[in-house]
Structure formats: C-alpha cells, structure tokens
C-alpha cells in the first residue's frame, strides 16, 4: 500500500516537473551557473596549483636566488656547506641584443648558462623540442618557448647576438621552458613582450668566455631542505657572498615570475566565492516564489491527498522532493559545465603559462559539499511554503483561497496627480501588493546587470590603467637601458645621433626598502629635476613635483611598508658599495602599474656618493628614422636593452583583447542566465496568477496587445528599477574586486564607461525580450471559455 502511494506521488512529481519544465529549467540554470562558476574556479585553482607544484618539483625550482658581481667557482663549495642547502647551481648570466631575421625592432635577451652535464641541478629545463647545447660548442643555444613561438623559430634556425659588444652568430638546437621564467618581463618594461624579449640558454663555457667570466659565476640558485627556514639560508648567503658584490639573496616569494603567478591564482579564489554567492541567492528567491505559487494552486489536491490518509510528513516530503529535484537538475548542469569549463580554462592557462602538462584536479569532496549547499539552499527557499502545505488542515484546503486583498498603495497616492488607466492601476497595485517579491525581482534583475557590468568594466579599467601609464605618465618613444651606470655625457652622445629629437636620463638602482620588520625589494628611480618625459602623479593624475631630498613612494608600497609621509625609511642599496641609507619619506603618490620609489636624480646621485650618473635614457625620436635608430642603438656598446613604448602597448592590447573577449562572453552569458531566470519566472508566475483576470478582460473586449500591456508593463517597471540598481550594485562590486585584485604588478583603477552600462542593460533587456515573447505567445493561447466557468 505504502509502495503504491509513493509511486503515485512520484508520478505526480514527474508530471508536474514536466509541466513546469520552462520554469524548472530557468531555475536549474541559475543554480547551475552558481555551481559551475564555483567548481570551475576551484578546479582551475587547484589544477593550476598542483600543476605548478609538480612543475616546480620535477624541475627543481629554486628556493633561493642570488645575483652577484663575480665570484670564483670554488666559493660554491662553501655555499654547499650552508646548513639547509640541498642543491645549488652557480651559473653565468648576461644580457644580449639580438638580431632576428625579418624583424627590425630591437630585441634583447637574458642569457643563462647551462652546466657541462646538460641539465642544471636547480631550475632544470623542460625541453619541448630538440636537445641541450653541446658543451663543446659555443654557438649552440636553447631558446624559451614564448620567444620561439613569437618569431616562429625552430631548432636549426639561426640568430645573431651582441654579447658584451661582440657579434656572435648562434644556432638554435632546442626550445625549452623553465619554472624560473613562467612569466617574463623585459628590464625597464612593465608587461611581457615575447617578441622583443626572450631567454636563451648557452653552454657554461661559451657564455663564460663571452662574458669574461671563466672560472667564475655571477648568479646562484639553490634548493633548501624544507626542514630549514629559507630566511636563515638567505642570511647565511648574504654573509658569504657580500664580498663578491652580491645584491642580496632572496627567497622564492620575492622571485618575480613566482610572485606574479601567485597573484593570478589568488584572483581565481576571489571568483570562486563572490559569484556563486550571487547565483545561489537569486536561485533561492526564484525557488521560493515558484514553490509558493505551486503549492497555493494545489490546495485542493493537498486536501484530497490528506482526506485519503496521507500524513503531513508525506505531503511535506513530496514537495521537498520537488524542490530537491530542481536543485539536482541545477547541480548536474553545474557540475558538468563546471568541470568542462574548468578543464577548458585550465588548458587556456596552461598554454598561457606554458606549463609542460596540466594536472587536472577534481576533488570529490568539493562536489559533495557543493551538492550539500545546493540542497540546503533549495530546501531553505521552499521551507515556508512546504511547511504551510504540510500543516494545511484538509477542510480548509478544500475551500478556495479568498480573493486577493488589495489596497490603494502609497505609491499610488503619490501619483494621485497622474491619471492612470485601469490596466496601469492593476500593474501598480500588483507590484505594491507583494513588496517583498517585487523587491527580490528587482534585486535579481539588478544582480544580472551587475554581473555583466563587472565582467566588462575590467576592460575599461585596464585600458585606462595602461593609457595612463604609457600616455600620461611615460611620454618617451624609447627607453634605453645601459649595461652599467655611466656619466650623463652618454646622453649627449645619444641625442646627437640622427633622428633622436630629445632625451633625458635617469638613474635606477636596486634597493631593499626596510621599515621595521617589513621590507620590499624594488628599484629606486632618480628622475631629473626638469624632466619632460617622465612624471610622478598623484591619485588625481596631477604631476607631483619631486622633493629636493627625500623619497616618494607609491601608495601600494607605502601601505605594504606601513610607512607614511615624514617617516624615515631605511634603504639598503643592493649594488656598488651596498651602502645603507636612511631617507625621509617626502610624499605618497599613486600609480596603477608597478611599484615605485622616486627621488630626484641629483639627490639619488648624491646619496649614492657618485657623480652625475645615469643608467637609462628616455628618448623621443623621429618615427620615419626608427629603423636606423634601432640599428644604431643595437650597435652602440653599453646599451643593454631598448623598449619601444608603442610596441609594448600594441602587444599588451592584443593579449588583453584576446583574454577579455572570452571573459566578457562568459560573464554576459552568466548575467543573461540570471536575468532570464528571474524575468521568465516572474512573467510565468504573473501569468499564472493573473491569467483569469486577463482572460476576463479579453472577454470584455480588451485586445491581445492591451492585455499584454498589463503583463509586460509590470516587467518593464521591474526592468526600469532593476537596471539602474544593477549599475549601482555593479559599481560597488567592481570597487570590491578592484580592491581585492590590487597586486604588486598593477592596481586596476575603477572606471565604468557609458558603453559598459549600455552593454549590461542590453544583455538584461534581451533576456527580458525573450521572456516577454514567450508571455506574448502564451497570452494568445488563453482559454477564454474556461475562465467563465471556473472559480479560481
């Protein structure tokens, strides 16, 4: 008997789900959206985390790094004895200017030596193609994959390097990646530029010969036993290598490529929490409305079931099953698409970061926890309505619900001067009768708008950021980095070259800024007093004049160091005589990209105890003569690298457009799903509640468009309220995201263009049109005869 009951109710459940399939699907999609974003971000985060960990482990990525002037190789034996050091690799590093066939822009490269044994002990290469250089041959090189790809280079191809002023033809024998160079930024640059900057590996002997470093090393990387603190090893290294011109050892957390990857992974975590929260709350509201409505139309059915002897618990369970079934459909959609998207995005990231292989990680526990949350949210949403159904006394349930109670709303009194038609009155009263539901619908639409806006504002913001940095703050065409600091007379030499119109120098020096226990490795930049090509700006992008003494810090850096104007800052210079300075903080500035500390060049030269010395030149050039200038500069001894502002911008926008297009599409899709879920359900519920009234009006002579006006007018008001609210919420969310996404590399400014506002409104509006079209079509099918004979 029990079995029969259960199966009859199951049949009812199945048929009702099928009857409400449109609404069920709309809700399930919203739930699915939340689950998918959450799972996708988790899968992505942990897959990338695991992939990176495996990559680091397999290729013995260093825990400690040191650059130095020159140390004899026997010093390495002492390094090996430092407690905690398990592996080490002393190598020669250098820079080169390259000539790549068919490419006229200046190209520079970082050179790293490989031991005779082939793979180094630390920072082993992942060889994609070809082989490692023959230790006996000085012209064989391995190039980094990103550079090879940017130029279409293959093993067997040749290129020319100018190392230490000498031209040297080289032949590519292999293409490789390294955990040390997952993210590569050229010196003096701020963004990756794979066409104009690369990494080359040469045999130890070859590079040492070219760099005059035979029997010596100038770079040390090492692995530390996990039982030992890296900081202790770093201190010991500093003590050991100071006398060889060490610029200060540092741990992995300060290594540029690693730090950038960390930032990126943390952003994924933000995405895994914020977005699902929005989706789940919208889904909860939708379920609440739909289930309440369903149960109120099934009062008589509930009464009959109870009259036949079904218990309150059975009735409650029956409707709980309905809710959970919808949640289950959403969960399945979400898990499937979350894993699929996570995998797809993982592949994309893998290609971007050039990891050897993606370790795909899906934890069954996450799915279990997500399922639990989804069901809990669904049951919570339906709780009140289900309880009401379970508690309904059968006799009362047999009675139809009385006519809905309405009153003249406050809004209407406010509008008393306006003559409302009766249909418009119906709309206003319908909306104000259930202010809670109206508010939630408006909020749902607002959230949809906000999600699309958040997905797109970043494009505006990043564009503004880059524009500010490269058009407003930096106005040079070329930045020339010198191999070693030189007298500013070099500048006059450069400016005299044909095609160069104007130039100014600057001095940068590697420093460690220290305030108490907080410290930060960065560059201290000395800018000439009368600089025209380089500016320091404040939060409103106004030029800040440089103080005669003292240092200016960017706000991000000041916060990290917990220091403010007037405080004294300890500056450990990591070059030259490695002196320690104490300089007052003269002011705080604002910059979107990078982390900077600024002084006047004159003051910097003075505190470093050097004459008028520069190591970078900023130039304005005649574009028509660019080719000649690049060639000249390439041949100029002492010039290490050349950055072209426009090239940097172009390559940046290209990457940006590619990445953001995917992202924008994805966010618009999610926003569209929420908008459709909310609007479709609102319209369907409204249609169900008002179907009888609307049919009556049709009988009384109202035309189809006149009746549709009542239904769609309500929708229009919800949109009118929801979209601007969404803009406001989106603005708030954007601010949150901008704050959460502040990294060393960049602080995205908050800017939202009219275009973005319009786009977010359009996505929501299109979803509304789709729902409206369905409602229009359903209204056509209203049964006018049935309405005359039925009591609600």
């Amino acid at each position, binding site marked *: 008997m029990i079995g029969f009951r259960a199966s009859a109710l199951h049949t009812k459940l199945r048929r009702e789900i099928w009857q409400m399939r449109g609404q069920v699907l709309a809700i399930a999609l919203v739930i699915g959206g939340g689950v998918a974003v959450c799972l996708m971000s988790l899968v992505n985060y942990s897959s990338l985390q695991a992939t990176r960990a495996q990559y680091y482990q397999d290729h013995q990525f260093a825990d400690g790094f040191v650059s130095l002037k020159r140390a004899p190789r026997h010093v390495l034996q002492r390094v090996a004895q430092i407690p905690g050091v398990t592996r080490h690799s002393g190598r020669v590093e250098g820079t080169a200017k390259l000539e790549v066939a068919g490419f006229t822009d200046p190209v520079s490269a970082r050179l790293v030596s490989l031991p005779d044994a082939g793979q180094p002990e630390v920072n082993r290469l992942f060889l994609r193609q070809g082989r490692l250089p023959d230790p006996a041959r000085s012209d064989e090189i391995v190039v980094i994959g990103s550079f090879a790809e940017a130029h279409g280079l293959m093993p067997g191809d040749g290129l020319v390097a100018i190392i230490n002023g000498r031209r040297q033809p080289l032949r590519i024998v292999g293409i490789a990646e390294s955990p040390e160079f997952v993210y590569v930024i050229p010196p003096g640059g701020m963004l990756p530029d794979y066409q104009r900057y690369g990494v080359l590996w040469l045999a130890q002997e070859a590079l040492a010969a070219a760099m005059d470093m035979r029997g010596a090393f100038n770079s040390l990387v090492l692995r530390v036993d996990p039982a030992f603190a890296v900081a202790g090893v770093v201190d010991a290294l500093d003590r050991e290598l100071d006398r060889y011109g060490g610029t200060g050892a540092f741990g992995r957390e300060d290594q540029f490529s690693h730090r950038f990857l960390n930032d990126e992974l943390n952003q994924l975590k933000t995405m895994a929490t914020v977005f699902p929260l929005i989706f789940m709350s919208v889904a909860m509201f939708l379920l609440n409305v739909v289930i309440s409505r369903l149960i109120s139309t099934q009062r008589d059915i509930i009464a009959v079931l109870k009259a036949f002897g079904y218990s309150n618990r059975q009735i409650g369970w029956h409707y709980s099953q309905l809710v959970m079934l919808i949640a289950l459909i959403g969960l399945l959609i979400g898990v499937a698409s979350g894993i699929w998207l996570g995998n797809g995005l993982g592949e994309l990231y893998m290609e971007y970061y050039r990891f050897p292989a993606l370790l795909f990680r899906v934890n069954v526990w996450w799915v279990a926890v997500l399922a639990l949350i989804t069901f809990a949210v669904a049951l919570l949403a339906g709780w009140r309505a289900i309880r009401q159904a379970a508690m309904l006394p059968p006799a009362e349930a047999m009675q139809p619900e*009385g*006519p*809905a*109670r*309405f*009153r003249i709303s406050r809004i209407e009194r406010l509008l008393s001067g306006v003559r409302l*038609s*009766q*249909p418009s*009155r*119906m709309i206003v*009263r*319908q909306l104000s*009768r259930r202010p809670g539901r109206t508010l939630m619908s408006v909020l749902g639409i607002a959230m949809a708008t906000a999600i699309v806006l958040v997905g797109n504002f970043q494009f505006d913001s990043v564009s503004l950021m880059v524009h500010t940095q490269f058009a407003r703050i930096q106005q040079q065409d070329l930045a020339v980095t010198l191999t070693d600091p030189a007298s500013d007379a070099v500048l006059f030499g450069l400016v005299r070259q044909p095609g160069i119109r104007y130039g100014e120098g600057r001095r940068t020096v590697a420093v460690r800024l220290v305030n108490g226990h907080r410290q930060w490795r960065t560059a201290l930049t000395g800018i000439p007093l009368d600089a025209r090509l380089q500016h320091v700006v404040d939060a409103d992008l106004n030029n800040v004049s440089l103080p005669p003494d003292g240092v200016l810090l960017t706000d991000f850096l000041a916060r990290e160091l917990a220091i403010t104007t007037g405080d004294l800052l300890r500056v450990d210079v990591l070059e030259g005589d490695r002196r320690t300075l104490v300089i007052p903080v003269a002011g705080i500035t604002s910059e979107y990209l990078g982390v900077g500390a600024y002084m006047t060049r004159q003051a910097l030269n003075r505190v470093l105890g050097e004459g008028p010395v520069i190591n970078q030149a900023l130039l304005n050039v005649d574009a028509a003569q660019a080719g000649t200038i690049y060639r000249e500069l390439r041949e100029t001894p002492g010039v290490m690298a050349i950055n072209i502002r426009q090239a940097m911008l172009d390559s940046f926008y290209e990457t940006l457009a590619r990445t953001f297009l995917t992202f924008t599409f994805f966010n618009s899709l999610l926003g569209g799903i929420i908008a459709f879920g909310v609007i479709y359900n609102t319209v369907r519920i409204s249609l169900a509640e008002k179907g*009888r*009234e609307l049919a*009556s*009006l*049709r*009988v*009384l*002579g*109202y*035309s*189809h468009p*006149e009746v549709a006006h009542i239904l769609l007018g309500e929708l229009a008001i919800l949109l009118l309220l929801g979209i601007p609210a969404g803009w406001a919420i989106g603005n708030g969310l954007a601010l949150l995201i901008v704050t959460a996404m502040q990294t060393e590399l960049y602080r995205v400014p908050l800017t939202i263009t009219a275009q973005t506002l319009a786009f977010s409104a359009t996505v929501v509006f299109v979803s509304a049109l789709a729902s409206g079209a369905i409602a229009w079509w359903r209204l056509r099918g209203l049964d*006018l*005869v049935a*309405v*005359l*004979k*039925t*009591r*609600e």
Partner: protein
Amino acid sequence: MPGQAVVFQTRGLTKVYEQGEVQVHALRGIDLDLYAGELVVMLGASGSGKSTLLNILGGLDVATAGKVCYRDMELSSAGDRELTRYRRHHVGFVFQFYNLIPSLTARENVAAVTEIAEAPMAPEEALDLVGLGNRMDHFPAQLSGGEQQRVAIARAIAKCPEVLLCDEPTGALDSATGVLVLAALDKANRETGTTTVIITHNASIAAMADRVITLSDGMISGERRNAERQDPRTLSW
C-alpha cells in the same frame, strides 16, 4: 416580440468538440432568432449546450457548422480581431463567478470597461443603477458575493451594450441574494432596452423572462412566451 428587429439569428448552428478520440456534439443544428430589447431565459440541464450557444453568440467560440449573425455581421466567419471588436462595442458579459479584477475597486472595475467603450455611461451611474452607489470605492475582497455580481452587472451595462449575455448569474449565490441580482438585470433591461440573455438551469427564474427557450441535448426542445414578466423580487428557489 416578432416585429422588433432581429439581433441574433442562427441557422443550423452546430458545434462538435473533439475531446481526445471522442466527439462531443454540443449543438446539433440550432435555428434561433433573438429580438431587440427582449429578455430571454435559456433553460437547460448541464450538458444541454446552453453555455456553448452563449459562448458562440458572445464571440468567444466559433461554430463547427451553420451560421450565426449579429445584425448584419456574420460571426461565424469573423476572425479574432473582429470578434474582439464585436465584444468590445456590442456585448456585455456577466459571469457565474463575477470575474472582477481583485486589484481594482468597484468603480475602477467598471471604468476598466468604460475606458475602452465608445459611448459609455459614467461608472457611478452604472453602479447607482445596480444599487451600489455607496460601495464604489470598495475592493472585491470587501464585497459580498451578491454585491460582487452586481458590480459585474454594472460593468456589463456601463458601456451601453446592445446585448447582455449572462451565464448562470445566480449560480454562485443564495436565493435572497440571487433575487437582488436578477432585479438588477431586470431593471437594466427595462431602462436601457438591452437585449438580455440569461442562461440557467434554475427553472424558477424563467418567470421573469419575455421568452423562455429550453435546450436539451444540443437542440431546442421547447419555447414559450410569458404573457407577463414577473417581478424578480417575487421569485424564490
């Protein structure tokens, strides 16, 4: 009332519903003339076809075969747009379950119709006519069933329709309240001269009509003319 203009004329009116695999013959060749200004009661048991006939006369349903004309307009060949216009300008409906708009007051319910009509009376006038001049600003939920039905009658007559079609107007009401509603219909018919058709299964109502038509099994099974219309207030059931 032969001699008066014919408002409705049906010839061979037939309606067949396909319900799944079963064919239901709701009307089997009805020939009927209704005259201007008369009050007709159509009597019949449930399933006799009276509602179907009313729906076709009201432009809510279309016949399977035969012809139905409203004055010179052939309803049997009209499309949705023409039928909507026909209902809007010529027909007043009174439903068994009142079908008032719960979000509008009595006055506004009437105004919902007068706003789209060509030469309506004022909503207040219509409500006065049914004796609800003092309840105009009440919402349906604040009115009794009889009062709601009288609002529905006011709504139906306010546009000064040429025909008033009432589908079991007292079906959901007790006798005392039903009488008040019938009195309102009687008054409206006398004062506005609207052709009024009341369908009911309640034979006691027949006495208030000019003419009584009985339907059974989709056909007209009887027709009689009352010598005198009885005042609805004297009716009871």
